[in-house]
């Protein structure tokens, strides 16, 4: 049984809830009081993840941290159809890794802006917003040209991959950090498509279609 160390308002934890739901995996939740309790910085949690960050999973004793790493693991272990992460296709693996890293940049900017506005983190908010806009321009352009080739997803023309899951939450929550998506029409269409994936679940701030 998988245990997810989880915080409801975390977009990174939500990525794993999404994938597990899409794959139909059962899991147990261990709630962490991220705010205001800062439980992710408690001694016992630092034993699990010395970085003091969510999420972490414990899959029958196999402990793994980092949302993107966990997406790779869960898709490789539990998606027998290889739709979400086709590890037999080297180019696909490379492309997905590239966009997982891009998702991490979205977290460092758009998610940081949200932490500043909602949980009072002391950050350079203008820098976060400017850099998030620069990333969204790149994603919007990529998705627009994908649409021209009838490709609906970030890495694949057939089905969404873990790259879409990794980029979705903090893009969709950007307005909580004061980052409008009005300039990114292709991103807005892609988020609509994402919400139509069978098994899609919500989190606070992200609504169904």
């Amino acid at each position: 049984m998988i245990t997810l160390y989880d915080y409801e308002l975390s977009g990174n934890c939500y990525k794993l809830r999404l994938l597990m739901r899409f794959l139909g995996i059962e899991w147990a939740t261990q709630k962490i009081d991220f705010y205001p309790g800062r439980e992710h910085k408690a001694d016992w949690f630092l034993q699990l993840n010395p970085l003091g960050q969510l999420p972490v999973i414990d899959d029958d004793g196999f402990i793994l941290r980092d949302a993107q790493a966990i997406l790779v693991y869960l898709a490789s272990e539990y998606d027998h159809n290889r739709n979400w992460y086709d590890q037999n296709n080297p180019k696909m693996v490379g492309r997905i890794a590239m966009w997982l890293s891009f998702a991490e940049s979205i977290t460092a900017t758009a998610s940081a802006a949200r932490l500043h506005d909602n949980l009072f983190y002391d950050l350079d908010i203008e820098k976060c917003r400017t850099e998030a806009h620069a990333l969204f321009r790149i994603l919007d352009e990529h998705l627009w040209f994908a649409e021209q080739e009838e490709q609906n997803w970030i890495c694949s023309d057939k089905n969404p991959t873990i790259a879409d899951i990794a980029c979705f939450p903090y893009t969709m929550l950007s307005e909580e950090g004061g980052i409008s998506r009005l300039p990114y029409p292709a991103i807005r269409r892609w988020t609509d498509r994402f919400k139509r994936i069978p098994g899609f679940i919500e989190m606070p701030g992200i609504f169904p279609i």
Partner: protein
Amino acid sequence: MAKRWFPILRSEEAEKGHVAQVALLGKEFAVWRAGDGQINVWENRCPHRGVRLSLGTNTGTELKCRYHCWRFESGSGQCVSIPSIPQRPIAKAIKVATYRCAEKYGYVWVNLEIDTDLPMVSALEDRPLTTLRSLFTNASLATVIESLSAYCFLPENASNLEEALLPAKLSKLEPLTFEAKSKDTAIIFLLQPASEESTVIHAAVTAALTGIKRLTTLRHHNERMEVLRDLAESSASRLKTPHFEPAQQIRGN
């Protein structure tokens, strides 16, 4: 300024099931296509509690507000369902502000004033067109117009790549419509003043392109238009920089 037709979205980007969010002259609009193909350009505000309708759902016949699920019908904007009071008749006054819109030359157009004519750009009439990717630009209309003269691209029958570096010949066709011509290839710019500080640059090539040729052209102009956008945005940020020396710091005793 408001009394004319403005292009606001490429027609094919008004997908069924989607609600696009668009800005024009500092106002926001929810743009959505009903299942029967009808295009709607509405004020982006639910008349009930003011929530943006672009957060809502396009059901195919109605736009459903995210907040209290009030439904407004395609065409009229009339409220047709209030789930919290299902038995009561709905007052005719409960209605979204709708705008006159049309689809022409591959774009959705809106007119904020009552006007009987359809949008008309003579340079686009009866011409084959390929619409390019529109670019949201953080620069005023005036700054974008100034930057347009620097637009350069590789014409169809170019003999070498250096021809892409020669500025195209720019002519103003109408206040918001420009043509950039290089050799025999023309590109038409249609400008959408989104706000005082932002402009959407729409553009079309006057040729019907398909397949690889179309994709190559889309990519080429996208790359050139991003250069144009960078230029407009850097002039816009220069304009914003105050032109005075910082005052000397005064030390208190």
